[in-house]
């Protein structure tokens, strides 16, 4: 079998494969730091029952949907009380409810968002809790 211009094609292929796999080789041996959102704020420490508005598994997977529901309920419908699946009531407010407990935005929100390269624009308007530089 003969390939016309085989040399050029093979050199081209080698360069192409090299470029495509470059990120993999480049990151070999580098530590892959998993995001570990921290929950140890003073406000959470004070809670007797350390529970968010819904279960941890639900919050981890669906918090963005919950926040969208909260946003529309509070702003558009004027409904400001959230009753969770256990019947407990919470005030619907990102700044006053969520961030009251999770007063560590950098270690809680940003930790995963940066890792996943998502940039939610919540904080363009909502005021993040004041944190000490760590």
């Amino acid at each position, binding site marked *: 079998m003969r390939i016309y211009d085989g040399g050029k094609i093979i050199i081209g292929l080698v360069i192409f494969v090299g470029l495509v796999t470059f990120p993999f080789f480049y990151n070999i041996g580098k530590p892959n730091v998993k995001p570990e959102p921290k929950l140890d704020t003073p406000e959470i420490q004070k809670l007797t029952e350390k529970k968010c508005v819904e*279960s941890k598994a*639900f919050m981890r997977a669906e918090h963005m949907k919950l926040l969208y529901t909260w946003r529309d309920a*509070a702003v558009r419908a004027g*409904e*400001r*009380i959230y009753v969770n*699946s256990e019947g407990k009531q919470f005030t619907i407010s990102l700044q006053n409810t969520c961030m009251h407990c999770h007063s560590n935005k950098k270690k809680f929100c940003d930790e995963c968002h940066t890792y996943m390269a998502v940039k939610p624009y919540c904080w363009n*308007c909502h*005021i993040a809790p004041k944190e000490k530089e760590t």
Partner: protein
Amino acid sequence: MKINRRQFLKIAGASTVLGLGGTAVVNMIANDGLEASHVMTDERALLAKRWAMAIDMRKFTTEEDYRRVINACHSIHNVPDIGNPKDEVKWIWSDGYEHVFPGQENEYMEESIKELPFIVLCNHCDNPPCVRVCPTKATFKRKDGIVMMDQHRCIGCRFCMAACPFGARSFNWKDPRPFIKKENLEYPTRTKGVVEKCTFCFERIAKGLIPACVEASQAIAKERGGEPGMFFGDLQDQNSEVRKILSSHFSIRRKPELGTEPSVFYIIGGENNG
């Protein structure tokens, strides 16, 4: 393979049933586990059919009165003080008679009224032109008559500013954060590129509180004795504060000829016959 019409219909029917059943199964599996949760109104919330405000201009006697009422609003809502009229953001402010009631002025009017600054804010019109023009429904009229702004949806097209005959809306030409002297951490700021205005303190009404400006005017009245300069209540309720004051005083509204039906009423001059 050849199929006749009868076989084709059978296959089509069976696959439709399968398809519908399939989505039901998928929905069941993908259930987000939030069946039992729901949202509701706070039981402390003030309710009305149409919120309205009456402003008794006779009670605003010193510059300090205006300042306190305006500050009460601007400080809790993180309204920036940019300090140049082009970029100015305002929810409640004061303006002269000829700008507030154009077409109703005359040369021989009482000097005191001609010179008087009037407290002006969003009129929360019953027929709001800003709501009609908003392409994203970022501004909308609530069931209780409040013309609300949803900053999450505002795309900054400024149609509403062109539509509003009262100049009640301000555009954020720049990031307002550096111009807020002291942030209220319980209320969001706005961002560059959105329009904002008075919301009749929807966030306070939801907790059973009256608007901040009305509260400030009541505080002034308490110190001084007598009636406050601002009243808030339900226009549809005969016994509300607003209806009581309107039924006993002569009142005017801004640009009534435009048919927007403002919900802010002004009491100007005259004896207190209430």
